[in-house]
């Protein structure tokens, strides 16, 4: 050692032993993943069913438009979109292929690319084929585009409103693309069983996926649009699904998806680590958070427009925030999960 460094008062520590989450998780049984795997499969199966029905409903409506068919179509869009919300937390595995998650839901969209791309496609003389959808990018390929076609007020009062030829072509092609992607995803997840169960890093990946989902829920889907961050101004238009008034319904569906597909394995894991009390508190907080619904299931524009309605949103936010603290801070520490400043950067 050099003289200069010999003089340094350093605290030698067993860095490897004290820091490693790998060391902690290596001892965990496969039981958490063994539980998560079939549960996520059932979520993907449901998504495939719902999107297939959506594609069929879109074809039915465009072949013979009627008020009734339109109502059924809008209802089916909601069902399929909520099926997606249930599994939206899964950000690893087959959903990473071809940016599938982004294809399902392009968000955030600060430049309103969905509307711009819809305008371009529906005004163009070019036929809207499956290939056109394939090549048009993620802003075209998923639920937000369908939401725009079905619920955008300006579009609805224009000559391009459904069931105009171009808008119907776009609607049916995108629903078909979505159904195809969902079918692919559920098939790919079946083939993913062996690598998922046998690869240790997917244990942490699953935990981090749920944690990231809660963080996005708290910060970007609630706090920021509520004006609790940044310039302090309320802005409902930066939530997802504001056009259809289902921003809060989708928040509920995301929480329900986590509760159904992630929470059971997570609680078992905590209990195995001697964290029964924390597990109980998290379970209770999930329930308390979901108790905000159905009262909070109103369009976000309504909830933000007057202070009485806004209190409903504040109550939900407080519960989500407490849930996030329990999972992302307390449980993360208890399980040795590190969610890093650099590790989530991507460069």
């Amino acid at each position, binding site marked *: *050692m*050099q003289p*200069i*460094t010999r*003089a*340094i*008062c*350093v*605290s*030698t*520590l*067993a*860095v*490897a032993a004290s*820091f*490693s*989450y*790998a*060391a902690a998780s290596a001892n965990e049984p496969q039981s958490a993943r063994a539980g998560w795997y079939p549960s996520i499969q059932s979520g993907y199966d449901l998504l495939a069913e719902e999107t297939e029905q959506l594609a069929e409903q879109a074809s039915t409506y465009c072949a013979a438009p009627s008020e009734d068919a339109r109502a059924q179509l809008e209802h089916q869009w909601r069902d399929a979109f909520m099926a997606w919300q249930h599994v939206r937390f899964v950000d*690893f*595995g087959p959903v*990473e292929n*071809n*940016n599938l998650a*982004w294809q399902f839901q392009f968000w*955030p969209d600060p*430049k309103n*690319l969905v509307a711009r791309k819809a305008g371009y496609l529906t005004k163009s003389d070019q036929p809207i084929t499956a290939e056109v959808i394939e090549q048009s*990018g*993620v802003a075209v390929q998923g639920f937000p585009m369908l939401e725009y076609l079905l619920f955008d007020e300006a579009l609805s009062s224009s000559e391009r409103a459904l069931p105009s030829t171009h808008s119907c072509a776009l609607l049916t092609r995108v629903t078909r693309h979505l159904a195809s992607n969902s079918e692919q995803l559920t098939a790919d997840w079946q083939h993913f069983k062996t*690598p998922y169960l*046998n*690869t*240790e*890093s*997917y244990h942490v*990946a699953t935990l981090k996926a749920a944690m990231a989902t809660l963080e996005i829920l708290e910060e970007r889907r609630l706090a920021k649009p509520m004006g609790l961050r940044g310039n302090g101004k309320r802005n409902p238009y930066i939530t997802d699904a504001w056009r259809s008034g289902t921003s809060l319904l989708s928040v509920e569906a995301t929480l329900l998806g986590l509760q159904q597909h992630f929470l059971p394995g997570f609680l078992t894991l905590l209990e195995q680590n001697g964290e029964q009390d924390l597990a109980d508190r998290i379970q209770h907080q999930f329930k308390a958070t979901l108790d905000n619904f159905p009262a909070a299931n109103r369009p976000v524009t309504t909830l933000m427009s007057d202070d009485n309605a806004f209190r409903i949103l504040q109550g939900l936010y407080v519960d989500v925030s407490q849930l996030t603290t329990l999972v992302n801070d307390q449980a993360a520490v208890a399980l040795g999960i*590190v969610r*890093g*400043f*650099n*590790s989530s*950067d*991507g*460069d």
Partner: protein
Amino acid sequence: MDTSRRQLLKAALGGSAALSLSGCSLLPRKSGFQPEQYSAAVGRPDGTFGISSVDLQGQPLWVSAVETRCHSGCMHPRGNKLVFFERRPGWSFYVLDAHTGRRLHHIEAAPGEHFVGHGVFSPDGRWLYATASRYEPGEGIVAVYDAEQNYQRTNTFELAGIGPHQITLHPDGETLAIALGGILTHPDYDRLKLNLDTMAPALILMNRRSGKIVGRLTPSHHQQSLRHLDIHPSGKVYVAYQHQGPRHETPALLARMENNRLQEIRFDGDTQIGLGNYIASVIAHPENDLVAAASPVGGTAVVFQGSTGKLLAKASIPDCSGVQALAGGDFLISSGQGKLVRLGANQAAQELSQLPLYWDHHLV
């Protein structure tokens, strides 16, 4: 963060009070002829960002607030100025007084372009070469700025490829080495990767005066995003990948340029898993044959023998990312948890300090 930690941070970063590093009074001296300080982009617990510098006594020298998160930068050869680039998509870079942190220039990207976080000076300090992207057509470029003319843009070199990232200068003083990640991104689409099936990463060697590409080497797999690199004073080039395929695949993440090809370096299975298919920094030690690399995703830092690829040391350091060579042959590793850790080939990792900030990707 509780009040006492907030006050500590304020005191430490404001320079109004001396902060004693835990179990440490001196940081090791940097190797070579670099100025006696370490600098990096930092995040702060209150959600703001800065560039920070610490001296060899481990005292924060200064923190310069910046509007958005920065990534990396470079020291002017005279050691009096620091340049830091905003994180991708970077819309500007900062030129700071290296001794005080005072902002000297704030240069915006040209219309239609964004920076990607890295740059390097010519040996005489006149020219700043910054990797950048023309984001609509998705074209990687090297943007050239004149440091003696208030960082006026003077030239543009085409990379004939997508997604350049780190750039450094070969010890010959004439050749730029550029890590071309190959990944198409667009600022409208957040950090979405648009071309994973067709990406074409490469190590590019370029004449710094003419912009002529004199070498283009490709990894063994097209999803090995070649993002970082370093060059030993002897001219040995080391590159680091970020693998874009499934996590359960664990291909080589490091390579050495040899006979005009990339000789890939793969460690044992556990180490490969520990690197999480993601290397954030690679540094070849100028005093010896050691190379260090850090992975924040895997929370693992490694030291290996450059000529053979033999693994010599490994440490689990959560969110570790920045690497610097230290005088005497060891390395300094920084982490997003505010730690500075010494790592060498022949001794256990030693935590040197812990500051209440997040060290961002690279140590400069």
